[in-house]
């Protein structure tokens, strides 16, 4: 069977898988960004009662395996009465895991804003919330975009694990095709290329574009 024939027969399934991977990627990214923002801000709070939950969260989700977390959320939580659909369990696990890494990026980005900016905002008598929201965060965002580009590629690759709870993503389809045809090189080789193209042709250019837009808004370009 030539590679072209392989693509003709199994291409549609791999495309379907890629679309599922894209859906997982978008949902997990949105969750990771939200969690990163909340946990990152909480970690900077002067009040320990706010700070400690964020520290615990980050330690647990950064310090343990994503696969184990995924199994916990899908197989163990139902024992406590929380049953998630496999699609939901998949992106929740990936989003929560990468969100913990993102929280550190948010914290670092905020701390990289020069002290003079805090002082200038304080000198205008802005409230702490307005200082953060209007002055510090917009600048922190620009500083942390490049590492976020990296993190989102990590996240994309992390979504391959959801195939292990039978979410029909790209990796799942490749495994299925391999199982029924034993065309391992074609199946996994194509999956490899599709993951790479997803990252290189979609995620990275999008982040570069975002960096340019943000740099322009801050007057640096």
């Amino acid at each position, binding site marked *: 069977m030539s590679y072209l024939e392989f693509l003709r027969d199994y291409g549609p399934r791999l495309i379907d898988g890629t679309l599922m991977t894209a859906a997982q990627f978008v949902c997990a990214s949105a969750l990771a960004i939200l969690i990163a923002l909340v946990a990152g801000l909480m970690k900077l709070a002067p009040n320990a009662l706010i700070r400690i939950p964020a520290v615990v969260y980050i330690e647990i989700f950064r310090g343990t395996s994503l696969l184990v977390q995924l199994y916990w959320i899908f197989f163990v939580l139902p024992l406590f009465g929380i049953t998630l659909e496999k699609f939901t369990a998949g992106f929740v696990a990936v989003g929560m895991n990468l969100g913990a890494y993102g929280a550190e990026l948010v914290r670092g980005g905020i701390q990289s804003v020069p002290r003079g900016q805090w002082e200038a905002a*304080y*000198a205008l*008598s802005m*409230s702490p919330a307005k200082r953060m929201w209007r*002055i510090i965060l917009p*600048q922190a965002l620009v500083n942390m975009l490049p590492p976020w580009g990296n993190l989102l590629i990590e996240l994309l690759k992390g979504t391959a694990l959801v195939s292990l709870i039978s979410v029909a993503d790209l990796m799942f389809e490749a495994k299925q095709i391999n199982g029924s045809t034993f065309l391992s090189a074609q199946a996994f080789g194509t999956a490899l290329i599709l993951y790479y193209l997803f990252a290189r042709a979609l995620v990275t250019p999008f982040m570069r574009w975002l960096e340019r837009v943000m740099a322009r808004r*801050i*007057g640096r370009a």
Partner: protein
Amino acid sequence: MKDLHDLSRYPLRLEGPDRPMVSFRNVTKRYGDLVVLDGLNLDVAEGEMVSIIGPSGSGKTTVLRMLMLERIQGGVIYVDGAPLSHMERGGKLVPANSRHLRAGREQIGMCFQHFNLFPHMTALGNCMEGPVQVLGLSKQAARERAEDLLEMVGMIDKRDEHPARLSGGQQQRVAIARALAMRPKVLLLDEVTSALDPEVIGEVTEVIRKLVQKYRLTIMMVTHQMGFAADISDRVCFFYDGRIEEEGAPADLFSNPQKERTQQFLSAVKSAD
């Protein structure tokens, strides 16, 4: 020494038409064990222009930072008669909470050595931010106020530029407009020309000169520019080692300094020029 820390020694308010706009009473500032200012007493009258000079490490910048940014470890600071560093609770002064400090500091504006303009906002946006977000002005009112001030500092043509596209002197003029947009009673100028190239210092000092001559604004200015300080100040304070070593009208202090350290400092500055 002990009774200096007894807060009941300090009045709850400074009354009377002659009360100073800013008053430091026995103010002490420490960073850990390091005493930066020790028992500072300084009154600044309404509409007065006071320059603060001295060698680095003498505590002169700290005088301004205590008014706007930092807490003190001893004494009381009053602004326009009301305690700033402290607040009244049940007829007694207690150290101010952050809300009281922020409210009190609404009466004060500050400009910094490195301008600290908000890089993600235009010149106009920088000047509208405080009035809209803190004073609650409408966008329209804040815009008119900001444009008037940018006109005054000669930056109206650059109102839509971001700080990254402005020279140091231009940024500092916008920063002065931003501080004035809050309509402060007191303006603090912390080495506002120190980071500037020599050829643009003049455009900033011209703006400050205009402020002194046209508006009855109380100004405290930390500076290394002795000539400028001599020119426009009502009074000059020479700081040395966390205290005011000598103060007086600029004509007296610069041409006839009494203390040895003042003489040494001024001659060192003169020979460096």
